């Protein structure tokens, strides 16, 4: 009996040891289902060669991403060791205790200098200017534009445009030009339309689209330090931006009332519109002739400047965080150390990932690698983001409830819409004790 007990204990010890070593050989990163996640899987396959640790990039459709991630967080689950979470999640995930504090890691590796400033500010730090970091900038992204070069360069179109608007047809440098060009190409009788913009009222789709206008018109969502919103989101510039976004909606194809990145790429691949708004991360598909018959004739430009010359774009992209419920945090940190190294970041960019690594990002090699990399590089210095506070989802809901009826449903005026939104956000910030 004594021998049996000893054998049992020995067996249990071996099992425990082997399970530890087995656990250390596999890391799971959770992300949304899109091309960059596939590129990341390709990249992390190379990590296994150097470390023996297999890294799996588990994905879910964008529509489920937030729900699935937070359900796992709320259950204190260890299904994922790392997560490439949205920038807006930083407040909720850090204050909720779901992310590991990476401030020490950030300082040790001087990441505030190594990564591009905007990516550090928006993908990693919470609260703003606190010096506390919760993620390593992984996939930089922002909203840009694609356009039909052949339509723009058609001599007959160029002459007609010049005659009508008094200047040359070219990728728009300002929102005023963007509106003119959208109007010019909007020809429903020819099944040709002006522009494709985000109109989906779920999550952050339409809000990001409108932000492109708001930021470039010189307005802001609010004061991110004091949480004051009255006079910011309903300022004359913001109201004008919303009015012009609604004007753009008038130049979209029929049925364009619930559209996001998929439809906006389709607008180009199906030859529907002259211009299309989309995140840079979706542009590789537009250069692929297998998925875009107009690939050779597709060009790209950064979000144009507003009336005052201000030029910004809504931030996309994500940072990679370590999940606090994972029992492989040490192994995850080793992976992150590998991930931030110069060579790996260079390789990440080669594979198609939008690196946030300042040196790689500013290299000529990166900037000339694709027709849109230069626009991406320029944009990453002119990005602004949505609120990253824990109650970001409520703020997004209010924005969707106010903006959508005005843009798509033609309800009320831009001023009424923005005043109502300011009141909603004020009430939310008051509810959570951020303002008096």
């Amino acid at each position, binding site marked *: 009996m004594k021998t049996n007990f000893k054998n049992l204990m020995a067996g249990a010890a071996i099992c425990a040891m082997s399970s530890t070593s087995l656990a250390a050989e596999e890391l799971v990163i959770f992300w949304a289902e899109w091309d960059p996640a596939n590129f990341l899987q390709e990249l992390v396959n190379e990590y296994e060669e150097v470390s023996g640790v297999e890294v799996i990039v588990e994905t879910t459709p964008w529509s489920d991403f937030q729900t699935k991630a937070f359900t796992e967080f709320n259950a204190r689950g260890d299904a994922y060791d790392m997560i490439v979470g949205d920038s807006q999640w930083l407040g*909720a995930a850090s204050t*909720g205790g779901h992310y590991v504090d990476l401030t020490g890691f950030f300082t040790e590796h001087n990441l505030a200098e190594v990564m591009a400033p905007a990516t550090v500010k928006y993908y990693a730090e919470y609260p703003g200017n606190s010096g506390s970091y919760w993620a390593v900038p992984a996939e930089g992204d922002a909203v840009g534009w694609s356009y039909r070069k052949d339509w723009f360069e058609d001599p007959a179109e160029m002459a007609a445009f010049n005659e009508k608007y008094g200047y040359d047809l070219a990728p728009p440098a300002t929102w005023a030009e963007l509106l003119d060009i959208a109007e010019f190409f909007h020809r429903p009788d020819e099944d040709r339309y002006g522009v494709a913009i985000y109109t989906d*009222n779920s999550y952050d789709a339409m809000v990001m689209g409108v932000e492109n206008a708001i930021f470039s018109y010189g307005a802001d969502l609010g004061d991110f330090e004091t949480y004051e919103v009255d006079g910011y989101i309903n300022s004359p510039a913001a109201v004008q931006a919303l009015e012009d976004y609604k004007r753009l909606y008038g130049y979209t194809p029929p049925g364009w009332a619930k559209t996001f990145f998929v439809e906006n790429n389709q607008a180009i691949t199906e030859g529907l519109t002259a211009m299309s708004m989309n995140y840079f991360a979706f542009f590789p598909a537009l250069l692929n002739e297998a998925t875009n018959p107009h690939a050779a004739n597709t060009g790209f430009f950064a979000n144009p400047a507003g009336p005052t010359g201000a030029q910004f774009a809504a931030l996309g992209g994500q940072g990679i965080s370590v999940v606090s419920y994972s029992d492989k945090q040490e192994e995850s940190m080793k992976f992150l150390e590998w991930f931030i190294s110069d060579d790996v970041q260079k390789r990440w960019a080669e594979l198609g990932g939008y690196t946030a690594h300042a040196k790689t990002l500013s290299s000529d090699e990166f900037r000339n690698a694709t027709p849109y990399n230069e626009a991406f590089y320029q944009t990453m210095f002119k990005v602004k983001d949505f609120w990253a506070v824990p109650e970001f989802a409520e703020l997004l809901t209010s924005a969707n409830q106010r903006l959508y009826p005005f843009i*798509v449903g033609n309800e009320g005026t831009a001023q009424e819409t923005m005043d109502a939104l300011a009141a909603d956000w004020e009430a939310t910030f008051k509810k959570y004790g951020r303002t008096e």
Partner: protein
Amino acid sequence: MSDLAIRNLFIIPTITFLIVFNIFPLLYSLGYSFTDFRASTNAPAKFVGLDNYKFLLNDEFIWRNFTITAKYVIISVSGQVIVGFGMAMLLNRDIPLKGLITTLLMLPMMLSMAVVGLFWKLLYDPSFGIINYGLGLGKFEWLADPDVALYAVALTDIWMWSPFVMLLSLAGLSAVPKHLYEAAEIDRAGSFYTFTRITLPLVAPILMIAIIFRTMEAFKTFDLAYILSSQPTTELIAIRLYKMAFLEWQTGQSSAFAYIVLIMVVAITNLYVKYLNKVKER
């Protein structure tokens, strides 16, 4: 097997199951509805009394959700009753291939909501949808037009669930004694008189059951509206509740919302049941 053994074997596990999976969560969420609890944070729940209920009942968007839902339930259920009962009346005669036609008409309700939603999304498409093509409506936007979208969703629901009303109505119609019609014929009663004095009163109880089921189902519609349109004018209470609970993680507030919806559904169902009993007594 003794009665005691049967009780132990069947009833106790069922009651245990009901308590664990129905009663306990119901009471637990009732407790949450009086707190500011958010599942996404590690902060403990704080008792806020009736604040959640007060906030919800004073929120303009919540009232809009209720109004939209009421409109949807009325359009959808009345449409299903008219179409379903009409189909049952047509099928309640001697026609060739009656069995096959009945089976084919029942197909829509056998499909999953998600499939129906995606299928009708294509049918409604302004560019290549067969509905616009067939009706010659050009590029009419069924799901994108905020004023029309709710009707489009209700129309799909009517298409899907009219067969259910038809099925119950057929059962009711086949149970009407033939001799009543024969007597009416001898008395030279008109078809309208026969319908209003014989058919409708005798089918009414079973039709009321169909209405109760369909009202409860329509009240909690989520998937169809979410897949087809999901814009403010089609944001039914179930969709708002889902967003509040699982996108905004306002656990306490959404629990209160769920209780308000529950009370409303119970109240409406009770009204129906009272009316059903009156109809039965006649």
